[in-house]
């Protein structure tokens, strides 16, 4: 039965209007605003994802598909005196000093060769796995330790928090490159030492973040509700805190990976990271710096630098999207 009474009467304050109604229809509680949109990558996010995806594929498959070996000399015959000199040849016309080849593009070496006459493209492909691999393992170590200590400090109460935080602050106050140089100098620059060194140095940063997030969650009513219920610390950490801390921590992982890549590359550039003849993007830049000086080809320096830049920018673009989705909270914590 539909009742469509519609009263309209005028008075000084305005008319009186009643919408048509069905006397039998009840008025349910209204839903709240719809839940926030699902996570979607923007155009820049997709660009980042494609670039990062590309480098990941290169890192994994590089050693198998590289045209030449890491330290293979593609053109051994070039050392022969009978050959006509290639572009940017070996000796300085004035001093007669050997200065490397730095050829541009020659006989299938798409990016030319480096100071030792090795194929640059192949070395970048080998270096990708090493640079990304070392950084990833180091970041994972940093996260493993940082998150356990950080959330532990948030849960354990003010006294433990005070002690751990002050020790952490002391390490945080040391410049990371200096600390890295000292550690590498003391323990030798092997890849395991590099990984442990970068991992420990970045543990301090992850600790701060994880502790902050953990503290924020600790004061939520649902954590208090779990305490009032009598739950033990293990339940509170694994079921109440961790699921809520995971998302912001995971998006920070990408950002932290960038810093570690730059850190490892810086160490290699300074000669204390990955040691020659092993290829790494950082030490490739260092080995080939001469190319800039002599001006025959800038590719040997630019190629690994561009590799570092595109990878870090790519990761950044993805992280931007994630933190924008999380309401910019992440950027506030940085």
């Amino acid at each position, binding site marked *: 039965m539909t009742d469509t*009474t519609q*009263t309209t009467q005028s*008075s*000084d*304050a*305005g*008319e*009186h*209007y*009643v*919408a048509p*109604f069905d*006397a039998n*229809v009840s*008025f349910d*509680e*209204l*839903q*709240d*605003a*719809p*839940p926030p*949109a*699902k996570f979607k990558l923007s155009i820049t996010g997709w660009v980042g994802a494609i670039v990062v995806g590309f480098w990941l594929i290169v890192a994994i498959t590089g050693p198998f598909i590289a045209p030449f070996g890491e330290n293979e000399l593609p053109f051994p015959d070039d050392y022969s005196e009978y050959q006509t000199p290639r572009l940017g040849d070996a000796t300085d016309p004035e001093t007669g000093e050997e200065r490397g080849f730095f050829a541009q593009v020659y006989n299938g070496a798409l990016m030319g060769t480096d100071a030792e006459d090795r194929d640059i493209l192949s070395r970048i492909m080998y270096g990708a796995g090493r640079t990304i691999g070392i950084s990833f393992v180091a970041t994972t170590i940093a996260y493993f330790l940082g998150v356990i200590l950080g959330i532990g400090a948030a849960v354990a109460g003010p006294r433990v928090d005070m002690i751990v935080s002050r020790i952490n602050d002391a390490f945080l106050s040391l410049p990371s490159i200096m600390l890295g140089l000292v550690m590498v100098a003391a323990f030798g620059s092997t890849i395991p030492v590099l990984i442990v060194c970068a991992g420990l140095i970045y543990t301090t940063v992850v600790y701060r973040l994880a502790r902050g997030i953990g503290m924020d969650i600790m004061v*939520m*009513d*649902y954590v*208090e*509700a779990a*305490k*009032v*219920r*009598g*739950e033990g610390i293990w339940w509170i950490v694994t*079921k*109440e805190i961790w*699921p*809520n801390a995971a998302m912001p921590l995971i998006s920070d992982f990408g950002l932290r990976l960038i810093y570690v890549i730059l850190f490892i590359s810086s160490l290699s550039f300074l000669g204390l990271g990955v040691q020659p003849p092993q290829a790494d993007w950082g030490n490739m830049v260092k080995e080939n710096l001469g190319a800039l000086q002599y001006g025959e080809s800038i590719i040997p320096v630019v190629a690994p630098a561009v590799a570092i830049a595109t990878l870090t920018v790519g990761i950044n673009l993805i992280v931007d999207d994630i933190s924008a989705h999380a309401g910019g909270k992440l950027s506030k914590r940085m």
Partner: protein
Amino acid sequence: MSDDDIVFETKDLRIHAMRDDGSELPIVKGVDIQVKRGQVVALIGESGSGKTTISLSSLGYCKPGLVWGGGEANLLGHDVTKMDTEELRPFRGEKVAYLAQSAAATFNPSIRINEQVTEAPVLHGTKTQEEANKRANELYHALELPNPDSIGDRYPHQVSGGQLQRLMAAMALCGDPDLLVLDEPTTALDVTTQIEVLKAFKKVIKEEGAAAIYVTHDLAVVAQIADYIVVLYSGEIKEKGPVDVIVNNPQHPYTQRLMAAVRPTPSAGMGDGADGSHRREAPALEARAVDAGYGKGSDGKPLVQILRDVNVTIERGHTVGVIGESGCGKSTLARVMAGLLPPFGGQINLDGGELPGALTSRKRSELQKIQFVYQMADTALNPRQRIGDILGRPLEFYHNLRGEKKRERVQQLLELVELPKEFAARFPHELSGGQKQRVNLARSMAAEPEVMLCDEVTSALDSIVGANVIKLLKGLRKETGVSFVFISHDLSTVASFADEIVVLYAGRVAEKGPVDQVLAPPFHPYTRLLISSVPEMRVGWLEETMGSREALAGISRGVTITKVGCPFFDRCPVAIDGTCDKIDPPKRADPHGHGHVIECHREIDELMAETAYAQAQIDAADAAANAGGEA
């Protein structure tokens, strides 16, 4: 009235939300409203009705995720839905001003108040800094702020919540806007603060002749301040008309339902208490001479002592309502009972046996018997757990139920709180506010407790949803015989639900006893202030109340915690100088009441006389008003 008088009007206004898949979800479905100069138009409806979205359309603003879907919103003859941000800039802050719900979130804590109040007109170039300062000063006087000449030099944290709310009105009015948009400006305030703010708003709107849109879900508040009411449901107008027509003669069933959900004025005999069938010898929970506070001070005492000698007894199956303004120690009492805050004096007894003060030293069986229900379901439910897991955990934890048995019990619990069984698979953010609060209650019920501590469980909900939750609690009480400690600053809700009332003031029990005794004379002066501050659903109530002696003496002051004497001394109309501020008040038993105790220096007879005097005053005012009306 000519068309020039129309400040703002919408014609068939439609606003859509964009869904993930690109489809449109209508939020506002063809709304026509008109706001004339000097008129206050109230938009009322429950949460989700689109009232805030419509009010924001007057600023040409759509919340993120919303888009204009058609129709017009004309502000001073310009359709703001067709303008871009640059074109809107001259309107916002100058022609139309917006007052948000929370003044605390609106003010920048590190900038002096005056600078923020005068910012808009100076920025828009409509006033010089001197003119704006002068105008702000006028407004401070008009809004009856304390120390109006110097209050602008303070920082936001140096004034009280009610004062900040009024300062926000000054901020909005400083640029002399044509239209004022007020979005639930008193909802988060205590009753006593609310009427103080309402009075200031009403006065200033009248004096300035500004037009206003007042958004709220509280009809009793609307009746005090609005000229015209628009009732919204689900983005559509259900009824609109002048305030007296809507209040006295609502036609649409939805309006009638809204009216029915309005909390009645608290009075004796309205209670719907328990029948005593669950009563046993020992009380379920008892607080004996509890002293508690926060911080670490000297000799084992807390830095700030909140609760002083609080005695509360909760009989089995009974509901004890705890009322008082914010800062009176209501939540502190609940936290002491729950074990979250160990008291430094006194003891908590459960079933006649003493309970350890600290949570960690209580046994699991003791924890199970006392359950705490949080005010905000949003933060009390873990957003990453499904409803089934949230409800299942206490079953597993306290009752060792697993697998099929647990699932069955979860479904029973959902049924108990009137939610569909399918909700077990949902996450909290997929539920509405009222539904979340039901889950919150169900989680506490899952423990099968003897006492449930409900801390303001209906305060964050609008009136209809809140009324439904109260109905549910009454059902639970009848079925399970659980005792409740029901904390609220809303006296009418407490009065309709509790068996006994404890009135807390500044950490002390001012008055306690059975509901009918507490809500009938003799009153503690503070109880009378609280009762008289509850808005009534009739036009003209505000003026009447503000003229009363309690209001004049006590409304504009805040709660102060004192070490000696009666803390209500500085707000009390019948305080005795030299006694009330020096000596702790004696506990006086009402000879007619069963366990009705008032802590006051005045004799019971004096308090009776006081009530009679106040009633005579109200009657006289009524008579005068009637005589005036007839003449």
